[in-house]
């Protein structure tokens, strides 16, 4: 199991960052990053343990659960971020539809093989939600310093990760059926590097979260 690959250290670092920033994030939507990142670390370590230590051929069922959770979380995050009611409704609708779709897939096709269609839909939805968020950033009539905007960093990470992973997800079934990516070298080359980008952006985003200091009145004599 050890040494762990670099991308897992980034995931652990992101989880630690969410713990360090807990006092800043505990009152807002970003507080859910702590359990989410913990789950992601556990999933990665368990998946690796099952494959490396127990020699199991497939750890697909773990990812079959973690991938929907990941995209539901991202969609929920965007739903909470959007200013427009319509976009909030769209994100909310997607969450329900996506949950239903995943359940149907698992019921009809089982969970022992990785369902790349879920990943592909997740990729597309995340890209679209990021684009909608970027659109809102473009049109908003107030000064926003993007360097200090947590959601901008997090969205950038999600956007680049999903854009990079999208094509592989689209060809996932073909590659696996034909055995054209034996040893998942291509997948690892793409996915592991993109994870670095994603979690680096999440870390920066979490560090950017500002504490609400409340209203402070000063009496001048």
């Amino acid at each position, binding site marked *: 199991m050890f040494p762990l690959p670099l991308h897992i250290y980034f995931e652990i670092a992101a989880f630690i960052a969410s713990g360090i920033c807990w006092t800043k994030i505990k009152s807002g939507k970003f507080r859910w990053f702590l359990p989410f990142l913990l789950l992601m670390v556990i999933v990665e370590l368990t998946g690796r343990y099952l494959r490396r230590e127990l020699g199991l051929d497939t750890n697909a069922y773990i990812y079959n659960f973690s991938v929907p959770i990941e995209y539901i979380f991202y969609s929920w995050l965007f739903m909470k971020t959007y200013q427009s009611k319509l976009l909030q409704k769209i994100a909310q609708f997607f969450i329900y539809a996506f949950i239903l779709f995943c359940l149907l897939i698992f019921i009809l096709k089982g969970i022992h093989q990785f369902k790349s269609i879920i990943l592909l839909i997740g990729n597309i939805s995340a890209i679209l939600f990021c684009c909608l968020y*970027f659109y809102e*950033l473009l049109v908003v009539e107030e000064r926003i*310093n993007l360097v200090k905007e947590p959601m901008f960093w997090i969205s*950038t990470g999600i*956007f*680049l990760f999903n*854009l990079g992973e999208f*094509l592989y997800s689209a060809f996932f079934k073909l590659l696996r059926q034909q055995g054209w990516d034996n040893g998942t070298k*291509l997948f690892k080359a793409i996915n592991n590097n993109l994870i670095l980008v994603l979690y680096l952006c999440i870390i920066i985003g979490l560090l950017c979260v500002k504490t609400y200091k409340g209203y402070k009145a000063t009496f001048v004599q």
Partner: protein
Amino acid sequence: MREDIQGLQGDVRSIIILGTIVFLILGAFIVSFIFLYRYRRNKMLFEKEQMETFFQQELLRTQLEIQEQTLKNISQEIHDNIGQMLSLAKLNLATTNIEQKEVVQQKINDSHHLISKAIQDLRDLSRSFNTDYVSEMGLLRSIEYELEMIQKTGTIKTKLDVTGPVYKLDPQKELILFRIVQETLNNVIKHANADTVSIMIAYNSANITLRISDNGCGFDLVPLNENANAKFGLGIRNMHNRAKLIGADFSISSMISKGTEVIIQSPKDETNGNAKN
């Protein structure tokens, strides 16, 4: 067959690798574009906020100056006019000899007339205490009132010509225009040594033109255009800046011993935020 499959495998892998690189470059481009766009927009919004703050400050200063000027007028009016009339009435009554009945009646009548005039002047003055009178009466009436006050001093004749259908401008804009007119009239009283001042106001569908002219001594405008002489004509520069603030054109022409003319042309629908620089 095997070669075909290997070729296809290579193609698919190439598509994925190249496509992923292209997508990532595209993504990086989109993020950079948003970043730069937002940076520029922030800069623009900051300038707009600064301009609005400046406009509000200028507006407040204008209001304070109008108030100050109004109080000065009131003080002068009380001292020079009402005070004099009441003193005269007091003197009349104090010097009345009750034994001379005909003279007494005359003196009482004179005192009655003087006190009535003082009451009337006080009524006029009380109107001036309302320092929001510009926004309440409107630009035209405020200018009329200002000219009436000058006319009353008896030293300068005033004339007002209005052409075109009268309309109201944005109250803030009217306030600033009025302050420019007031400042110009003050300059005429203080420095021009004129016996006539006239104001022409032309309303048309696109703009309003105010032309204030006097037949005074005039002055040399050349130092105004010399940057080194920044202190000269500070009041005129101030008026010019205020006119710019509301998107109006300000021009001044003067000839020694032939008088001075100030022209302010303000667009009808130009509002705060669209001010020219």
